[in-house]
């Protein structure tokens, strides 16, 4: 049986907002950056009853910053202006409000599966609450004004993370990426711009932000994602029927390596975990101990691993501990 997260893993929407009375973050001095931060925090206190935790980047260790990045809860950009930036993380980790990123506010929602409507609703709700007290920089012609003209208008970037191992096996990713780009969308690896698609994970998102409503952007993205998901599922079915033995072999080899390795780089781990997930989703392997592969992929990222264990590790030690973590997770799996 196909789970609904067999291909579409998660949905993320972020919107950029700026306050009228402040220069954009890059040109703010630290005092004004703090003033702006306090204005936002006051608004949060007045308008929000959900439980948010507040973090200043300067109070976090480098490892902690990386961990939040690896979990996609904050953007890399947020950690570049150490003295000015901070973020609020909702208790359930479904929403982050980043303060003094490239823009004054970046509101982000992160939901599992393909869930664009709900992610947009949540994002827009938070936006409304903030806007009830804050004066946004808005122009009736250009919409929400942003530090970079590439984001002006809706200020919205909607993206869906996809697991596409079989489209990769049949070497279809290049032409698919090309086709998606022609439709005005962007395809990137797991950690954004320029990162390679490790673990066969891809993020597909809208490229432009001006001239369409948020709903139009989301509907278009949704339609295309559904098509890609359908393609991946078809190829899975095809490979299972026509090349079932080869596919099964690939999956079991990966399983064997994951179950018995003593040293494992994150790149190697990502590729084998991708095959393992495929094994679960195609019914070659039974996930009886309920392993969440995507969570495991994040758990073995360098910073997250070191933060959780609270130690500094060199590469060789990391590869050793990574292999150990994976073996532990798979130890209860029967074949």
């Amino acid at each position: 049986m196909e789970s609904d997260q067999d291909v579409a893993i998660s949905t993320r929407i972020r919107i950029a907002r700026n306050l009228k009375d402040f220069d954009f973050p890059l040109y703010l001095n630290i005092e004004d950056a703090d003033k702006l931060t306090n204005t936002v925090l006051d608004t949060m206190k007045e308008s929000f009853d959900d439980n948010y935790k507040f973090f200043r980047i300067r109070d976090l260790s480098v490892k902690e910053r990386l961990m939040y990045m690896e979990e996609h809860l904050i953007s890399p950009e947020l950690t570049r202006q150490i003295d000015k930036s901070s973020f609020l993380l909702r208790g359930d980790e479904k929403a982050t409000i980043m303060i003094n990123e490239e823009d004054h506010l970046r509101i982000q929602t992160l939901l599992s599966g393909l869930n664009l409507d709900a992610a947009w609703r949540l994002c827009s709700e938070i936006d409304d609450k903030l806007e009830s007290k804050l004066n946004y920089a808005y122009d009736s012609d250009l919409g929400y004004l942003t530090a970079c003209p590439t984001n002006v208008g809706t200020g919205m970037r909607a993206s869906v993370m996809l697991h596409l191992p079989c489209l990769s096996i049949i070497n279809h990713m290049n032409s698919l990426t090309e086709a998606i780009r022609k439709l005005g969308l962007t395809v990137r690896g797991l950690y954004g711009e320029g990162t390679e698609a490790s673990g066969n994970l891809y993020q597909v998102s809208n490229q432009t932000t001006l001239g369409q409503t948020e709903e139009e952007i989301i509907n278009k993205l949704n339609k295309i994602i559904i098509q890609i998901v359908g393609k991946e599922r078809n190829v899975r079915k095809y490979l299972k029927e026509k090349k079932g033995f080869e596919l099964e072999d690939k999956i079991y080899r990966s399983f064997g390596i994951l179950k018995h390795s003593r040293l494992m780089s994150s790149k190697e781990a990502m590729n084998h975990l991708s095959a393992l997930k495929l094994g679960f989703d195609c019914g070659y392997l039974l996930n009886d101990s309920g392993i969440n592969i995507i969570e495991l992929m994040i758990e073995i990222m360098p910073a997250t691993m070191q933060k959780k264990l609270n130690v500094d590790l060199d590469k060789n030690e990391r590869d050793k501990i990574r292999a150990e973590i994976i073996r532990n997770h798979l130890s209860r799996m029967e074949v």
Partner: protein
Amino acid sequence: MLCDKCKVNTAKLHYTKIINGKVEELHLCEICAIENQDFDMDNPFSIHKLFTGLFENIKDKNEESTEEITCSNCGLTLSRFKKTGKLGCAKCYEDFNEYLQPVIQGIHGHKHHIGKSPKRLSPDIKLQKDIEGLSVELEDAVKKEEFEKAAEIRDEIKRVKEQLRTCKG
């Protein structure tokens, strides 16, 4: 430590790069770091670079006529913007409008925002938006040859325009 490039701001970002076996170090402030993204190992392909290229093309076209344009609010110069690709404040959009318009059109293929707008818009922007909305309705009514309805909408537009005039004082 001062920024290696502007020698004004404090250096916040530190880079090392090995070129032909020689280690090169660079200490930059946040603003200069953005101009130097090719030095940034974490960001081998930067979409920003792509767009600054776009901004620079605009410069070439207008080269003869340009004297430096400066934002009247934040003091950012247009040439600085062309280097970083980042504007300084909301007012920059007005003061650099002539240069930004073709850039924005080039990036997005559109000139006008039609999505969400703040609920607490200042009254004149709100009225302006109302007029735009009514104009679309009017066009639609004319197209469908619903002339009675069209006349009603036209009166409504007149009324809102009058309101806008008094509101602007």
